[in-house]
């Protein structure tokens, strides 16, 4: 059994998505989904309800406060947006523990994930683009593969870093050479297993290297998330062992017609919004 196979089978032993989130996602795939029934499905889980209401009322997610019921949130923010918040609050707590292999202390992986998702959303607003509904959630999930790999990296983290420096290759390339897989591919596999929608899985799979994505798996969300990741990395948010050893895809910048001012303004907003979102997502929603 290769190391790659071992890592994948380790990933397959991980628990499924939290049950209420699975139920809600399954429910949504029904063509005749009814708002009232969806509200009831969410309200069935008190933790999820609290999180959804907190997010719906936060300034970042566009709530102006005063949303007191899930039905109200669905009405004001739209069904698709609320479902994204459900997924986010179901999965985010998974990324909260320390990940020793990447030298990430408790909460750091979650903080970085939030910064990527937030950065992608903020950037879209700054550029006057309409980000696809799943942009925040996909950004939030990008680093989830690190949870599995972190267990392996405890063994040879320094070896990975040394390879990255000695060969002058990005850290994820060092992951692939030594482990046979990088955290983006592993994360995408995990989310596919959890039956998350394909556009989210594709963003996670290619977020470090959008140029490598097949044309049919690339969209605006991927470009926004890649730049979100660049901004989070440069800001040093939730920065682990690898520091800034990943590569920038200029094509994303070009496609988004990104300007220096838009990036500066977005980075400032990410840092300002981080605390509010972190408080919401770091409570136990799962």
């Amino acid at each position, binding site marked *: 059994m290769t190391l790659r196979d071992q890592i994948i089978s380790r990933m397959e032993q991980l628990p499924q998505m939290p049950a209420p989130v699975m139920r809600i996602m399954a429910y949504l795939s029904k063509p005749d989904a009814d708002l009232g029934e969806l509200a009831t499905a969410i309200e069935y889980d008190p933790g999820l309800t609290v999180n959804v209401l907190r997010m719906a009322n936060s300034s970042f997610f566009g709530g102006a406060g005063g949303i007191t019921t899930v039905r109200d949130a669905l009405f004001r923010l739209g069904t698709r947006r609320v479902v994204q918040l459900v997924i986010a609050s179901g999965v985010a707590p998974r990324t909260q523990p320390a990940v020793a292999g990447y030298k990430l202390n408790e909460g750091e992986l979650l903080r970085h994930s939030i910064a990527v998702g937030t950065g992608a959303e903020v950037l879209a607003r700054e550029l006057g683009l309409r980000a696809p509904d799943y942009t925040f959630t996909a950004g939030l999930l990008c680093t989830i593969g690190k949870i599995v790999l972190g267990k392996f990296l405890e063994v040879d983290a320094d070896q990975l870093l040394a390879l990255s420096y000695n060969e002058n290759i990005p850290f994820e390339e060092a992951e692939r050479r030594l482990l046979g897989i990088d955290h983006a591919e592993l994360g995408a596999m995990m989310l596919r297993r959890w039956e998350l929608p394909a556009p989210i899985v594709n963003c996670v799979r290619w977020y470090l290297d959008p140029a490598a994505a097949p044309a049919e798996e690339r969209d605006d969300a991927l470009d926004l998330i890649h730049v979100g990741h660049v901004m989070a990395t*440069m800001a040093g948010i939730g920065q682990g062992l690898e520091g800034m050893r990943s590569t920038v895809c200029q094509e994303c910048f070009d496609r988004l017609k990104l300007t220096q001012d838009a990036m500066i303004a977005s980075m400032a907003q990410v840092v300002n919004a981080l605390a509010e979102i972190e408080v919401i997502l770091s409570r136990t929603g799962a």
Partner: protein
Amino acid sequence: MKNRLVVSISDMKISRRPRDMLVTHSLGSCLGLAAYDPAARVGGLIHCLLPRAVGPNVENPYMYVNVGVPLMIRKLASMGCAKEGLVFKAAGCGRMNLIQNQFDTGAQNMAMLESLFTRNGVVLAAQDVGGTIPRTLMLDVETGKVTITSQGQEWEI
């Protein structure tokens, strides 16, 4: 045992207590700047995210090199530091692989600091900037010693 005062992103702290250690973590492209007056034994540490603000409204001055650094110096002066006696040491300003210059906020942060210092005749006593390593920067208020830790290594600048 030192009392660690943590300076977060876009923040600044000043201390005159010898037992304090000013610390700022994970400087990516951000600029970390330590200022110390050996005579007054007062130290300041700032963690700037960006070179300058876009637009006139600056919510948090410490976020930006062009307004945050002068503000830190003014606050140090108001605590009895002689401006000309301050020792400045910079760290951070890292760069991601293949990023174009116009988006390289690390280089822009350093350029902004240099132009600020050049205009005011200030000389940087030490710097450890650029590259891809994540840096933690520490200033010992008792001694003025400035230390960087990164990826398990530690060195003084």
